């Protein structure tokens, strides 16, 4: 075997190895978020059970669970599971300052959000459902009375709702915190 042949073989093997390594590298990067153990869902799940309203610890040097929280904003969340029925979400809205509800899929992406500006009589209400549950609900809608509820379709059966309230002064943080406790997520009981 000539020297040139050996060099060509080594080059071909190196190129093949490089190609395989490159593919593995790209695939690993693409699947990393799916297998990440520290996404929002995993972190929030560690704080409490599904359905419960759980306050997030105030942002500070000692609260190391969730980065990039606003220290001026109190937040709480509840996790929903639509496999047992639609989830009714209710929260009080701030009467002067800013408060908001954001609706997230299990992956953490927001599929809907409303602020206190959308509140009716000081409350924010919504129904989170799957596409099938929405079809079922629409089939039962009366032709005469208009639908008065806000229906939000979640792309994943599980997800979470986050309430945020801004404190306009440091001394008002407790009040913002109290507002976040008004969040309630209840699985709807049909037929009763």
């Amino acid at each position, binding site marked *: 075997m000539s020297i040139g042949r050996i060099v060509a073989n080594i080059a071909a093997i190196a190129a093949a190895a490089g190609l395989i390594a490159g593919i593995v590298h790209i695939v690993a990067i693409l699947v990393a978020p799916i297998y990440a153990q520290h996404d929002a869902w995993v972190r929030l799940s560690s704080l409490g059970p599904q359905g419960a309203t759980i306050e997030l610890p105030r*942002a*500070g040097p000692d609260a190391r669970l969730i*980065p990039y929280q*606003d*220290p001026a904003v109190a937040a709480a969340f509840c996790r929903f599971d639509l496999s047992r029925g639609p989830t009714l979400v209710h929260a009080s809205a701030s009467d002067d300052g*800013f408060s908001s509800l954001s609706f997230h899929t299990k992956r953490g992406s927001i599929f809907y959000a409303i602020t206190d*500006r959308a509140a009716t009589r000081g409350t924010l209400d919504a129904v989170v459902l799957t596409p099938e549950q929405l079809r079922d609900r629409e089939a039962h809608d009366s032709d005469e009375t208009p639908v008065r509820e806000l229906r939000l379709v979640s792309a994943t059966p599980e997800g979470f709702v986050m309430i945020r309230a801004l*404190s*306009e002064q440091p001394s008002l943080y407790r009040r913002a915190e109290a507002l976040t406790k008004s969040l309630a997520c209840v699985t709807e009981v049909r037929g009763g």
Partner: protein
Amino acid sequence: VPAARFWTLSLVDRQGFPIDNAAQRFGFRSSEVLRDADGSFQVTVAPVAQAGNWLPVGAQERYNLVLRLYDSPVSATAAAIDRNSLPGITRETCP
């Protein structure tokens, strides 16, 4: 600052967490920042106490400033943020 009902400006380390400081000052709200007569404001990031709006940075050499706009017509999808409306950052020398 781009139009918004409220904004907050906070300082975090490179992992996204506030930096511990004796003043327990991690950021400013639009409702509490000290302003000049024309409504503008100046925030000083420094390891030692400064007059006016001081954001303590501790021993960190690298940090992130986070500006949050609450209830703003500006959104991530609908509109680009005008650079000129954002606060400017200038580096000063140590006194």
